[in-house]
């Protein structure tokens, strides 16, 4: 079977598994999985682990960012300071944080907590390399 035909079949099967209703899915799993209780237990563990790991990654990234911003404010590095000012200006609820010199760790967390941390770290590290 050529790749073209195989790919179309696989696309269709993926569409099926994404869309099929929960009752039909539950019936299929009973046929597919030899020990459904063991499967459900493993799945519960994975969900817990996945969410816990994601939270840890997020917290690690947040602390890394706070540290970078604190250092940038002390050294008056243009780009990070400009980024913080932009976040503050873009959100009315952050107006009280206008004075960057007086920002605590918790204040910086409040300013950046809704941003994409991975993207921010990348931008700041690229800027550091250019310095």
């Amino acid at each position, binding site marked *: *079977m*050529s790749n073209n035909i195989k790919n179309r079949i696989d696309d*269709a099967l993926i569409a099926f598994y994404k869309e099929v209703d929960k009752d039909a*899915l539950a019936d299929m799993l009973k046929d597919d999985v030899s020990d459904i209780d063991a499967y459900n237990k493993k799945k519960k563990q994975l969900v817990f682990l996945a969410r816990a790991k994601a939270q840890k990654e997020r917290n690690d990234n947040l602390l890394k960012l706070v540290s970078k911003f604190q250092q940038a404010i002390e050294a008056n590095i243009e780009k990070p300071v400009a980024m913080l000012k932009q976040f503050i200006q873009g959100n009315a609820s952050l107006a009280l944080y206008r004075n960057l010199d007086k920002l605590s760790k918790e204040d910086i967390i409040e300013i950046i907590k809704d941003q994409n941390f991975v993207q921010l770290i990348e931008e700041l590290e690229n800027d550091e390399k250019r310095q």
Partner: protein
Amino acid sequence: MLMFFNFLPRPRIFFLRVANFFPILAYYYRQELMNLYDELQSIDLDDLLDRLTSYATNRLKSAGLKDLGGKEPFDFVGDLLLKVIEGTRDWENANCSFTDFMFGSLRSEISNFLKGSLVGQTQDLLESHAYNNQDDIKEERQQVSELLQQAGADDDELMVFEYWMDGICKPREIAEDLGIDVKEIYRTVKRLERRLPKIREQAKSII
């Protein structure tokens, strides 16, 4: 529209869950967020894992591979999810839904696994000679359809196969086009999925 979400009170997870019921809202909110942590908190991860596992089970079964190197199909799903969290597979910059990303990545992981196996290497040899000429695809499509018929496929299965070959693969779209209940299509797809491995050996010899 996107700025609106900055003024929403916390917690954001609550609004993501509500947005899941309104597809347009969910699309815009996700475009704004694209944050793995929030996504994992808001989606029905249990349901997604069930779907991915079912797909992996049937995909691996249809490849005819008996030895999965000590792994279960669910392990492929679990390993993938951990790769996504660790950043080895980067969803946040992928510009698609988390569900689409997971299915696409799982397909790729299984494909790589099969290529590394004897079954996959044999298939690779045969596929390296596969042609992509439009007329040949038409002819091959016809031959696969005939093989399905010989293997006992009913009219409904053959019709669904034709929809797939025409690029219409969502069960709901097929059901709407035919004016029937989508559950009929689900049942037909399951029958067709079980039928396909029976013709893979013969389909190889078409090339």
